């Protein structure tokens, strides 16, 4: 800032300050509108049926080197018979632009209630796996993952 401007707030500073204020105000609200919360996403999957903790084992490393490919394994306690099996396993995240990750449809022919995959996590957050059983009950397990970011980002050109 030049000496002349020191005594008063320059016009440019006002514009900058105003712009920054708008940005700060705008960001959280649009984000909230853009995606459902983790709980809302789970409710959308279960149709509001209460989810019980247990039966589900969500295996994900607590700290990952890159959020682009995070290995996830979900196993559910189930005999996987025609009368008692896992119908679906859904994965949801807390802080990506979208809450949904994937929904896996199993059934007795899947033989084992266990899936593994690789997912993207935009930042450190909570991940939840929800299993829908053939009796209509829902079970879940969650985990916190810390995502470390690369120090240098390569340009795209």
């Amino acid at each position: 800032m030049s000496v002349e401007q020191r005594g008063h707030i320059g016009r440019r500073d006002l514009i900058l300050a105003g712009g920054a204020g708008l940005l700060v105000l705008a960001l959280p609200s649009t984000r909230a509108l853009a995606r459902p919360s983790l709980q809302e996403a789970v409710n959308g999957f279960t149709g509001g049926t209460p989810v019980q903790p247990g039966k589900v084992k969500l295996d994900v490393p607590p700290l990952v080197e890159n959020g682009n490919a995070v290995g996830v394994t979900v196993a559910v306690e189930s005999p996987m018979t025609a009368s008692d099996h896992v119908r679906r396993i859904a994965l949801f995240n807390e802080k990506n632009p979208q809450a949904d990750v994937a929904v896996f449809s199993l059934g007795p022919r899947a033989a084992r209630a266990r899936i593994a995959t690789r997912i993207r996590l935009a930042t450190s957050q909570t991940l939840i796996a929800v299993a829908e059983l053939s009796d209509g009950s829902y079970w879940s397990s969650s985990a916190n993952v810390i995502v470390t970011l690369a120090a240098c980002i390569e340009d795209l050109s």
Partner: protein
Amino acid sequence: MKARLALMVLLCAGEAAAQEIPAAERRSGTDFMSAQTRAVQEDDTANPGMLWVLQGETLWNEPAGAAGRSCASCHGEAATSMRGVAARYPAFDAASGAPIDLAGKIDQCRTERQKAKSLPRESEDALGLAAYIGHQSRGMPIASPDDARLDAARAEGKRLFETRMGQLNLACSSCHDANWRGRLGGSAVTQAHPTGYPIYRLEWQAVGSLQRRMRGCMVGVRAEPFAYGAAEYIALELYLNSRAAEMPIETPGVRP
């Protein structure tokens, strides 16, 4: 993150002349990775780099260009004819009187023998062929040729490796010789041994070449990167291979 980067810069700048890493202390990038990333690299049914290897295998057997020949028409089974080839490149190319890297050699075969269109560097097909051919040398030690005609380029590569560049004024050696035990933000610095190229990098979400990796470091220190295929990259690769002599090839490597 910025504060850490600045700290790292100070660290590097404060370091006395970087020493080369003794052979006994050499470690592949694999050793710096998490157990999860290592498991992905080590299982061919989970390693996404294998998708490029398979693509390369298809191309190897596919006739291309005016000559109507495939790589296999001349070279036969890659498992035998290409075993150990990637371990020796870059090599001296008598025709051009200069060192040539594996990607350059593949493209030379393509344009001159198959009379086909040149494959641009970093194109999926070029990376696929390089990954397939590189994969044939997996487990073999890097063995840069003992060829006096390569000496000048190798020396130039060493000079470039030790030359400070970019707005951050860092040489490759400032980090990869002097500070390989350190971390840059959340990432391990590593020793920069080219054992797994082309690699599947989680950051890229795809396979890329050693030149792309070096380009990334140059952009990172805010230097103007060399153009793909530049003699400087090939000189650097020659030096890196002499620096990593005897280390086993891991292609397709997986890196964060």
